[in-house]
């Protein structure tokens, strides 16, 4: 039994990954950006200077000023406050969508990779079919079928991202299922279920964490895209995508309405991309 545990511990762990990550400067910048937006989302009611949904007809489409640092929108709402609150929708959508993708994709990938045979063929062919469909096209179609709301957008993005995790996990399982520690566990009479949970799963977690970070960036962009098309968060609640949809009509006389929510999306997505890239490099770094 000790041999199994010792061999299993040799696989890359999340802790060693974190240690390697600290050495990556760009990844740390990404982490700081992500933590900044998490802070904004969590403490939005304390940070935002105004109510993000309160209209003020006396301050409609005002340019940036001391009172409204990012100006106001077509209904006189403070753009800065809406950008701050918008981080909640983006991070929530990203987190829930990625969680759905992992919760559905991880077990399917484990089953396909570990058991092989007809079950692998069925899961893999279905995964290929979903992967053949462009990500955003699939997300738009699912969101449309489910109905326009933030909740349904998250489900649609989660389902669209699921095949990536199935394929990743299946590949990981295939590469480790014949390792000594798994064979030893089988030899000791362990059943398939406990082997998957105790020996396979811990070795799959790290690449899944890396993929989840990269997918967060994609999911946030997808949520903004769906909201922009009117298939995500509904007004008056703040969402960067829907803010840009409205801002499009006032490009000539209120450009600040477009600039700030867009910059917020670019920054948070860049943060997750930098972090994901750094994690990926750390994962592939040789000991």
């Amino acid at each position, binding site marked *: 039994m000790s041999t199994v545990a010792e061999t299993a511990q040799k696989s890359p762990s999340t802790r060693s990954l974190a240690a390697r990550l600290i050495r990556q400067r760009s990844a740390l910048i990404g982490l700081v950006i992500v933590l900044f937006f998490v802070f904004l989302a969590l403490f939005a009611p304390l940070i935002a200077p105004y109510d993000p949904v309160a209209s003020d007809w006396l301050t409609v489409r005002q340019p940036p000023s001391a009172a409204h640092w990012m100006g106001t929108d077509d209904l006189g709402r403070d753009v800065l406050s809406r950008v701050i609150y918008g981080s909640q929708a983006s991070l929530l959508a990203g987190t829930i969508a990625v969680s759905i993708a992992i919760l559905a994709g991880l077990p399917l990938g484990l089953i396909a990779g570990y058991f092989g045979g007809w079950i692998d063929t069925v899961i893999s062919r279905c995964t290929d079919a979903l992967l053949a*469909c462009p990500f955003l096209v699939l997300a738009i179609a699912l969101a449309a079928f489910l109905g326009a709301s933030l909740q349904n957008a998250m489900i649609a993005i989660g389902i669209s991202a699921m095949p990536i995790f199935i394929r990743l996990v299946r590949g990981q399982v295939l590469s480790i299922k014949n390792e000594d520690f798994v064979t030893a566990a089988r030899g000791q009479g362990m059943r398939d279920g406990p082997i998957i949970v105790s020996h396979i799963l811990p070795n799959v977690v790290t690449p899944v964490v890396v993929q989840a970070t990269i997918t967060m960036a994609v999911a946030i962009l997808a949520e903004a895209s769906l909201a922009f098309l009117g298939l995500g968060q509904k007004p008056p609640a703040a969402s960067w995508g829907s803010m840009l949809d409205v801002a499009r009509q006032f490009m000539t006389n209120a450009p600040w309405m477009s600039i700030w929510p867009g910059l917020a999306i670019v920054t948070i997505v860049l943060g997750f*991309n930098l972090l994901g890239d750094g994690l990926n490099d750390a994962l592939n770094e040789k000991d």
Partner: protein
Amino acid sequence: MAMLNFIFRRLLTAIPTLLILSVFVFLLLKFLPGDPALVLAGEDRDPAVIASIRARYGLDQPLPIQYVTWLLGVLQGDFGISIRTKMPIGDMLVQRLPVTLQLSLQAMIIACVIGIPAGTIAAIRRGKATDVAVTTAGLAGLSIPSFWFGIILIMIFAVSLGWLPSGGYVSFWDSPLENLRYTLLPSIVLGTAAAAIIMRHTRNSMLSILKEDFVRTARAKGLKERIVIVRHALRNGLIPVVTTGALHLGELLSGAVLTEQVFGIPGFGKMIVDGVFSRDYAVVQAVILCSAAIFVLLSLIADILYVKLSPRLQA
């Protein structure tokens, strides 16, 4: 002969993928709330009329029969009639697809022109300021939402400078020059993200090629660095980039959805958005299936290109 065998085997694996997707797409439509016969009947709620509509469109048949009938129609290019435009969806696809393909090809040219030199320079100057700048710019390119970038470009080049139109479309056959003016900004928007991807692939590929023995030999022979890079390294380093590029053309369809929406271009991407908002689900079905078929075809082309371009695999 070996190549023909390879293509045949790849085609055989693509068929189940498309068949499974067709089942998904068919069922998605079937599980929608609401009875299509009632929608087609409109105001006329006479049970006899509704029954005749059901019989005419085969809606009274068992689900597997409905699927087979639908699939046979799709295979002959019959995707049904759009409830919004009242046009055959097959005809709409024939009209819209070339528009998006033109945009995608222009975007891919922009992506290659920017991405390949940038990725090569980043690989040559690995770890230096140029590499960091190019890599970060690449990541930024991947992080920009296409719809926002489109808005910003419209604000600069259409609204402020007045150089290019803010939206709309003129067919290439009506006026090639006007067509270029109308498609330039959307192509730049689509090409930016693609350039970032091409740049990253070129950089990674060149980094591994620059370590190869044949590059070292070329340098040892005293060849100029420019010749070593262009004739020896880049020629081999671009093999995976070409295949990625072919594959990425399919991904551009995703980006085209939003770009066409922002610029009001009547392409394939706008077709799905219009289909969604007018609840024209047969159109949505057709677009998903066609996107997947194009993606599968491009994957096949990417694989063939890889085998063709890679001397080791050919041998």
